């Protein structure tokens, strides 16, 4: 068992699960999508991205790009939330909530791809 592999897998799966936790639930209802879940998903996703730095293999490159996509989507969701709540002051209306959740849904897709790559990589492993 390799500690590096454990941490790597842990963060990738955790990023996907947190993202899923935020995403699940009726898309229009703000009480089902807590902002702390979004924050946790963003932080873990950033850490997962950094863990993928510096791998020169083809799989490593795909890993990094999917993570970057997830980060981009989550940051967009966070900015949408901040604009709605603090700048325009409209608050979490059904429109805002659905756009934040759908952005995080895009990130969830990227995270799922990440997890699939992780599984494929593990299956291919011959040692």
């Amino acid at each position, binding site marked *: 068992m390799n500690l590096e592999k454990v941490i790597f897998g842990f963060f990738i799966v955790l990023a996907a699960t947190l993202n899923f936790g935020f995403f699940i639930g009726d898309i229009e209802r703000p009480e089902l999508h807590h*902002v*702390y879940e979004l*924050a*946790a998903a963003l*932080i873990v996703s*950033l*850490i997962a991205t*950094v*863990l993928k*730095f*510096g791998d*020169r293999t083809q799989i490593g490159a795909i890993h990094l790009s999917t993570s970057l996509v997830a980060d981009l989507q989550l940051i967009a969701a966070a900015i949408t*939330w*901040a604009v709605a*709540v*603090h700048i325009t002051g409209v608050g979490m209306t059904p429109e805002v909530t659905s756009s934040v959740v759908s952005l995080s849904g895009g990130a969830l897709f990227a995270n799922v791809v990440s997890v699939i790559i992780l599984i494929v990589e593990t299956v291919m492993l011959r040692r």
Partner: protein
Amino acid sequence: MVNSAFFLVLRRMRAPIIVLIVIYGISVIGLTLVPGVDAEGRPAPPLSIFHAFYFISYTATTIGFGEIPTAFSDAQRLWVTFCIYLTVVGWSYSVLTLIALLQDKGFQNTLTVNRFRRRIRRLKEPFYLICGCGETGNLICRTLDRLGHAFVVLEKDDMRVQELDLQDFKTDIPALAADARQPNILKLSGLQHAKCRAVLAVTNDEEANLAIAIAVRLLNPGIPVIARARTPSVAANMASFGTDHIINPFARFAEYLGLAVASPERFRLIEMLTGLPETPLPEPHRPPAGRWILCGYGRFGHLLATHLQPAGIDLTIIDPGCADCASPPTIRGHGTEAVTLQQAGIDRAAGIIAGSDDDVNNLSIAVTASELKPSLFVVTRQNHSVNNPLFAAYNADFTMIPGRIVAQECIAILTTPLLAAFLDLLRERDETWSGALVVRLQTLCDGRTPALWGIKLNIADAQGAYRALMQGQRIALGDILRDGTDRSQALPAATLLIRRDKELILLPPDDFLLAAGDELLLASSLAARRNLELTLHNPNELDYILTGSEVSGSWLWARFRQPGKSAGRVIEN
């Protein structure tokens, strides 16, 4: 591997960036949990995630706007105090890691290699790859630089590469401190580059030269490789896989010394032709025949013996350890003491060769010998160029400097391919012919060695002349050897050889008619070379040289001057 430096940075910065993200996460989430206070002192809800992130961002980067949007409660201040120390640690860790990375030897090496690779890839003009920049390599570099050729240097020793930067070269030379024995280093230095002309393996290490020679033969068989070899076994090994030129300085010097005894005029001619361009003319060497003493009977000594005995020299050998040399009379010792020299019969000897591999011993032998017999012809072997002042002060009749011999031969082979053919023809000529040519060459470059160079009358090298010849113009050799600034003056240059297809014309006369595609071997000063190259390349210059008319070559001007032009034709005919 192109952006390996970038990947290295990413890899090293993983831990600090993760630490920063975690610290930011803890601080921001913590700040959103601590209750605040409003202007009247009543408890207020904590900061939202957005405000907390904003606050931590400017606090962590030590910008510090104060407590925004409202003044903090004491609970918030307690948490923020903790956060400040936490984030400072995080940022310091990141910055220190980055600085350590920039100072890292391996990282800097990656950057240097990347920069070197980029420069090689961008090279547009033909270049030589020089492996090894010791005494020999450096001499080759300086000469090639003066002749205006591009080259790339590979040298194992980092110090020598740095010294190259300090030397006064006309162009900035791509140089890399790396082991040329590794094929990937050779490839990186442009071995397979389309513009690579030749590879010179002139390191101090026999095995390295061998490795370079075979790597070139396998990785780029189309280009010539010139290698230095000291031992016959390595030379034979190199020859076995077709190394183009193998230079053994000892064998070459022994051959020259033998030639200098047997036919001094021809030797003098060869010395002038293979000398480095525009260096002071070597003093004429006239070693006498007769009895000679040879101190040091190693590789160099053996080679000398094989070349000198046919030239009519009886050798007496002085060597400290001597097992296999029964044939020539041998005396044990170094030759540095008067006793040994007298034993060897110095009073009857005509010359002495101080040929050991120790410079100090060689000088000691030379000084002792010339004190015992001032009329003696002294040949010294100089192993290191640091001892230049000592050898110059002693001023032997003939000094052998291995590095210089290798450098001269490399330059001669590289810059003038026709020279080898000329030297072959030279063998069949007698001493008076050589003597006459020496006198002629001496006047060309006032007291300096003339530069030897070749030019082919083709579209690339001599456009003007090629076009004129293809149009059927009759141009004699004497017509083009005129000064381009004043055509009444003859250009101080001598044509040694012309190659037309397979035919070789030795010392062609002035009325020799040129043809397109002729290859010329000329001897002149470097200035005269530039002069003639311009004449042959530029049609207007060539026109001036041939007819004396200064036309601009523009079509409009030619129309205006129609009558004048026909007058020009008359002069020409």
